[in-house]
């Protein structure tokens, strides 16, 4: 017997209901107003060019001695880690008594086109680390890298192991040639030199489209069909629009940095080979001898779990911990499951290591 149990009147009603919900949705959207993001109080402690180093206001009475610096990716914006009340990894880390700093790379423009990985990692990032070390009168701080920021943190920790006490990486690509890495396949045959020489900075819009095209029917279609069902609830619609704002808030990428990252990491997979060149230095992950906590997401469509898990075989530390999160690349920061799991796990792991 055919597996269709749908009556004709139900089909008509379903389409009519869809249409009326869509029509009513415009009223909900008009009531939403400005979308606010970034819930935790913070203040800038250092600015350089377009980069700003923030320090979050503590939420716990007793602060841990070693501060934690969060290194975000160059793509998209860091408020994803602090999206809204109750959906904020940073809030969770502050509640656990951590003294949290965050690097916001800003929006590069054409004047930043010749910024290189060396400028970002041995320049901006290193100066932020030095500033925090001096401010707290300590030799080494804790680092937490997010996605590409995790890759930057790995490079930094390998080049400056004397400044990093503990390293936490989250959904961080390490092996860029694992199976099912669509992003890597897309860039594999692109003439990156021609691309950068032609475009200068790489437009954020192009990166947006690239990420969405990894799962186009779900991310550019089904997601909005789900939204139609939410449009009668202003708060739910606001939450959706908040995520939407983050997804399409994409800074352009400094051309030279993109060139280096796409070629050395994505095309040549040099990180796992110990051959990434940052300025005059070669990155050897064996230099990472401090404790490492590597968190990855099981359903990550941007950074396949295997890409992150490869870290274990590359680092020189004998204190390596991995944590698998049952969710996706974004869910690891914003889902309610993540709020209960990730910040407490990070805080507990750091506490055990001083």
């Amino acid at each position, binding site marked *: 017997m055919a597996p269709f149990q*749908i009556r004709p009147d139900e089909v008509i009603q379903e389409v009519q209901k869809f249409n009326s919900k869509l029509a009513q949705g*415009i009223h909900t959207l008009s009531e939403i107003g400005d979308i606010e993001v970034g819930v935790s109080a913070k203040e800038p402690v250092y600015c350089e060019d377009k980069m700003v180093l923030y320090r979050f206001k503590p939420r716990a009475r007793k602060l841990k001695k070693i501060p934690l610096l969060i290194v975000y990716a160059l793509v998209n914006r860091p408020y994803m880690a602090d999206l809204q009340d109750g959906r904020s990894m940073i809030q969770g880390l502050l509640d656990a008594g951590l003294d949290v700093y965050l690097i916001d790379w800003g929006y590069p423009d054409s004047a930043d086109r010749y910024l290189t990985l060396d400028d970002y990692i041995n320049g901006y990032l290193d100066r932020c680390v030095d500033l925090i070390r001096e401010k707290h009168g300590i030799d080494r701080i804790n680092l937490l890298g997010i996605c590409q920021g995790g890759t930057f943190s790995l490079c930094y920790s390998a080049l400056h192991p004397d400044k990093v006490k503990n390293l936490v990486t989250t959904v961080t690509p390490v092996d860029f040639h694992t199976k099912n890495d669509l992003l890597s396949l897309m860039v594999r045959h692109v003439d990156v030199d021609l691309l950068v020489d032609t475009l200068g900075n790489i437009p954020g819009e192009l990166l947006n489209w690239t990420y969405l095209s990894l799962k186009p029917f779900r991310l550019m279609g089904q997601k909005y069909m789900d939204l139609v069902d939410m449009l009668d609830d202003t708060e739910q619609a606001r939450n959706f629009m908040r995520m939407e704002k983050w997804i399409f808030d994409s800074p352009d990428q400094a051309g030279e940095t993109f060139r280096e990252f796409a070629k050395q990491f994505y095309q040549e997979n040099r990180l796992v080979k110990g051959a990434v060149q940052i300025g005059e230095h070669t990155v050897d992950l064996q*230099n990472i001898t401090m404790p490492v906590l590597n968190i990855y997401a099981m359903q990550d469509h941007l950074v396949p779990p295997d890409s992150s898990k490869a870290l274990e075989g590359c680092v020189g530390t004998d204190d390596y911990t991995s944590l698998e999160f049952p969710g996706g690349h974004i869910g690891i920061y914003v889902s309610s499951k993540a709020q209960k799991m990730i910040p407490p796990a990070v805080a507990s792991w750091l506490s055990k290591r001083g």
Partner: protein
Amino acid sequence: MAESPVNKKTSQSPWDIDWLETQRQYMDAWKSFSRFNPAAPDITTRNENPWAEAMDHWWRTVSPSAPQGSHAFMSKMLEQGKVFYMLAEQFTRLLNGMDQLNKVSEGWEDLLRQQIEEMKTLLAGGRDSAGEAWHGMLGAWQLLPLDTLQRTFSSASLMPGDFLQDLKPEALEKVTDKFLSIPGVGYTRESQEQIQEAIRLWGIYQKACQEYHSATSRICIDTLDCMHRRILDMNEQGKELRSLREIYDLWVDCSEEAYAAFTGTEEFSELYGHLTNSLMAVKQHGRNIIDEALSALNMPTRRGINTMQKRQQELRRDWRSALNRIRQLEEKIGTLHQPAAARRAGGAAAPATPKKRAAGKKKAAATTTKRKKPAKATAGKRKAASARDDMIVIKI
């Protein structure tokens, strides 16, 4: 299950409804509504997809008063809605056919196969409204990268992505061999060659587009095959589809499966790379032509600005390096001015001085470099870097 009004008509099948007529009634209702709105645009024609037309009509009516920021978003929502209407129409036909069969017969499988084949034919033929809608489903808001790539890259040149849009490869082939082989002559020889090169590059890009289109059209066919397979599996497992939304979700799952199967191949990687590279070549050539024109007018060129920006960044790096060196020297001088006893005590206690940091940095670099390069080369490089630092200190 409650009996529907349609089911009460025992003399005929509940699926004996005129889908298009129902949609037209719906659109008429929208039209009646819009009569009360003087800003509403007039509808004088009817197309084959009145549901979509009704929603378009509604949006044109309300959009002037809608918040500006919501326009793009709502337009996308309406596009996705059209996919929903398309599925409704296609599957209503299928369900109508099934209802006429004996419920327990195996004939539904043949009917399903026929319907799937019909959808494939629409895809293959594709220029009527139904075909366009199916292509729109494949497109899923710019699934094909061409629109986005062209829009993005248009800003890189005064000659936008569509300036040679009408020159298609099939037309080009007739003229290119002859035209492009004619050598440029006379005073304008150079510009003739530039135009020939632009046309040649555009032809390569158009071919890459065709190859990409041809390969991606397979995704839709594979999606339908996947749906066919899954519906048969559901039947074997005793599962049921109970709403249009469930059919839509099944379509999304199958589309993603077919898309992932295609994009996970080396063929896709090569096609995508070829497509991007060929478009970049067109854009870069266009930019070079513009640069030459600007240069002739003694105006700033992209090339010249690049040079300035590159030099500026190099200067900033050198300045940073010099600043660090000055700080180190200042600390060294400060230490020398201290009495010997304080110097000894300070030297033992200072945990995070710039001096110590610099030493740490060198140590890390030395460790990593040692593994990869001969010690002599590393020492030479360091010496060169040091000499450069010294030179900049003198400059400042």
